[in-house]
């Protein structure tokens, strides 16, 4: 179990580093669930938990300066718990949110205290024109992810299931079911956040069109993407040559 817990912790550390650099999106639950499932030898549960947690946090992303709940550590631990306790996705949903909130606090501390220290050191090396040290100050924070995210993940996966399983047994079924229902609705907060990030609010009727084709006609996700392409093209055609200052004034 030691090796597996270590591998999960290393995956989480890599995923967080990815989010802070390349952004291949290994940080997303969809991918992390798959990876943890592979590590723990239960790909099917990994895919299911990953998809379920992704639904919770689909629209919850880093926009501007608002740190979102952490989707990576939460999905990794939730997947591990689901597989190791044998309780499946419901327990995963119940685990994911509290862990995501703790992860968010860690990220906030990292960005408001730890990395502020690094940029102050960076200032010093900038005024000395010391390129190598400046690059080092810009890169070192990545290593600390091992401490901030990797270590807690290791401890949770290695010790967690043994200690947590008896308590999980004690939770009434109705509460677990309630968490699953709550987890199903939680995506609404993410979509509200995304809606809030769109600045050209005068275009809201397109939101209604998207809703109608999806809810009434049951067109699937790929179809919605195609409709978006069509509407973008039409919008572009009909606004060609028109003054765009209205959109610009929103910035």
């Amino acid at each position: 179990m030691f090796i597996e817990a270590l591998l999960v912790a290393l995956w989480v550390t890599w995923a967080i580093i990815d989010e802070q650099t390349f952004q291949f999106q290994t940080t997303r639950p969809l991918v992390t669930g798959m990876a943890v499932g592979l590590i723990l030898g239960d790909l099917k549960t990994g895919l299911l938990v990953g998809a379920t947690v992704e639904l919770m946090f689909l629209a919850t992303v880093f926009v501007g300066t608002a740190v979102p709940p952490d989707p990576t550590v939460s999905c990794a631990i939730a997947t591990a718990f689901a597989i190791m306790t044998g309780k499946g996705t419901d327990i995963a949903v119940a685990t994911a949110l509290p862990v995501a909130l703790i992860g968010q606090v860690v990220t906030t501390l990292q960005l408001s205290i730890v990395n502020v220290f690094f940029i102050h050191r960076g200032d010093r090396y900038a005024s000395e024109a010391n390129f190598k040290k400046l690059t080092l100050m810009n890169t070192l924070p990545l290593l600390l992810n091992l401490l901030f995210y990797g270590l807690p993940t290791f401890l949770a996966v290695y010790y967690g299931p043994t200690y947590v399983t008896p308590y999980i047994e004690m939770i009434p079924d109705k509460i677990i079911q309630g968490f699953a229902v709550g987890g199903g609705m939680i995506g609404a907060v993410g979509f509200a956040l995304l809606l809030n990030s769109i600045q050209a609010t005068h275009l809201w009727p397109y939101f209604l069109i998207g809703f109608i084709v999806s809810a009434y006609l049951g067109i699937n996700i790929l179809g919605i993407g195609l409709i978006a392409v069509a509407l973008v093209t039409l919008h572009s055609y009909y606004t060609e040559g028109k003054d765009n200052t209205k959109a610009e004034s929103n910035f």
Partner: protein
Amino acid sequence: MSRNNETNKLTRKELWSIYFRQIFIRSALNFERHQAMGFANSMIPVIRKYYDTKEEQAEALKRHMELFLTQPMVSAIPVGIAAAMEERYATKKDIEPESINAVKTALMGPLAALGDSLINGTLRPLLAGFGIALAMKGSIAGPLIFLIGMTIITLGVRYYGVFKGYEGGAKMVEDLHKSGLISKLSELSAVAAYVVIGGFIPQIVNMKTTIEYTAGEAVINLQETLDGLIPGILPLGITILMYYLLTRKKASPILLMVLVMLFGVVGVYLNILG
């Protein structure tokens, strides 16, 4: 002192070096000046090439240690443009150094709006939604397609930003503003994001009521009644409620998530949600 090298442009190799450094633009993200150090770090190949004295190099580095924040992938565009402007300032001295930061600052907001709508609001949810559907059926292709798609997007956008931004230089900013291209693209991205978000809500937000009531003899299921009137009204309603609490009541997203979770538990106990 600048070198006498008016025709000495950045080489492909140096541009690739900037590209690789740009990937680290937010590795030291912080709440004081956000991506400032990542930006300064991206400028090192330019500064090393065009400034000889320590004083000039320090001055240029400090210039880029000023606050900078935009969507990380599209931040490659101002990185490319700033590289071109630094080169021009160092070799020709016909622009003000202050104008470099002015251009960066002017691009931050519009590019953030564009990047957030296009990538976070449209492309990523679409690919993820597609991936989720496959993963739910137990297919590993779901996460893999999502991962490959996003890898192409993140590497491609950054390549375009650094190389085209450098090629276009300060003129690109002028062109972008004159033709209203950024605001036009932002508007089109907003159209796509609205369609996708509106379309996703009834399929991704899962909320159903189990309330039943009797009308005369018949037992009527409220959810079926709602589905007959406006399918997806509950997911839409809760999203609009969250949007209202978020924007008008300034509620924190975390608080809202916890409340939604509790609402789920209470709903199950009261037998109104399931």
